[in-house]
């Protein structure tokens, strides 16, 4: 993920700002790292350049995309 993406991301639990920790970076993109919410003491992983902003226990109604075609 690009570090600039942090500007539009928030903690899915409390909507507070997140703090980025970079573990691996390539061409200005964070490949591995974490996004941390101080308020909830909750960490969200960044794996293969993609931040995972699902709450710790994903809701049953979670929707990703079409199951059709």
């Amino acid at each position, binding site marked *: 993920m690009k570090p600039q993406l942090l500007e539009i991301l928030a903690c899915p639990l409390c909507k507070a700002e997140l703090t980025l920790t970079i573990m691996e970076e390539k061409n200005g993109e964070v490949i591995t790292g974490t996004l941390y919410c101080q308020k909830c003491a909750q960490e969200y992983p960044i794996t293969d350049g*993609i931040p995972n902003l699902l709450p710790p226990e994903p809701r049953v109604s979670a929707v990703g995309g079409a199951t059709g075609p």
Partner: protein
Amino acid sequence: MNIYDEMEPQFYHKIAEAVGKANPILDIGCGEGRLTNFLARTLGSEVCGVDISDLKLTKDRETSDARDVSDLVWFVKGDASQLDFLVNDSFAAIVSIYVLHEFMNPPESLRELRRVLKASGKFIVVDFVKGGEAERLWAERYYTPCEIESMLKEAGFTDIAMEFVYDDVVFVTSRMSCTRLKHET
């Protein structure tokens, strides 16, 4: 490949046309990110794809098409029906293809989409409608065009225009009204 897969490129072009210069764009339920990458490549805009499945997102990033536009495309693993992880007024356009019918609580999800959309931002929906071939193929619950229009209106979208782009597929364009609803502030 079914008829809907075959028609997808046609729908993508129509979506790009409707999005125009709006930037950045949110693609909800982006799946493998085909539309996400298409919009970035065609419009040169920044596009954020959100999907709950990491397998689909990983697969997408490995394609050559994805590498071409990697500077413009971001992916986030998240729930497209609950956008709590995105801040208010982040996008100038939101696109969704075959996603609306999947929302468990459409009014709530549509309110969330409004929240992350900038004032006068565009919301473009492509989805199946009730009573067509798709319903027989996938046995999912779809809405009538009237139901879709009502849901959008109730959620505060305006300038709603709808047309059939296939027997049971509607293409809907709408805008977020300039004024936020009381509970959104």
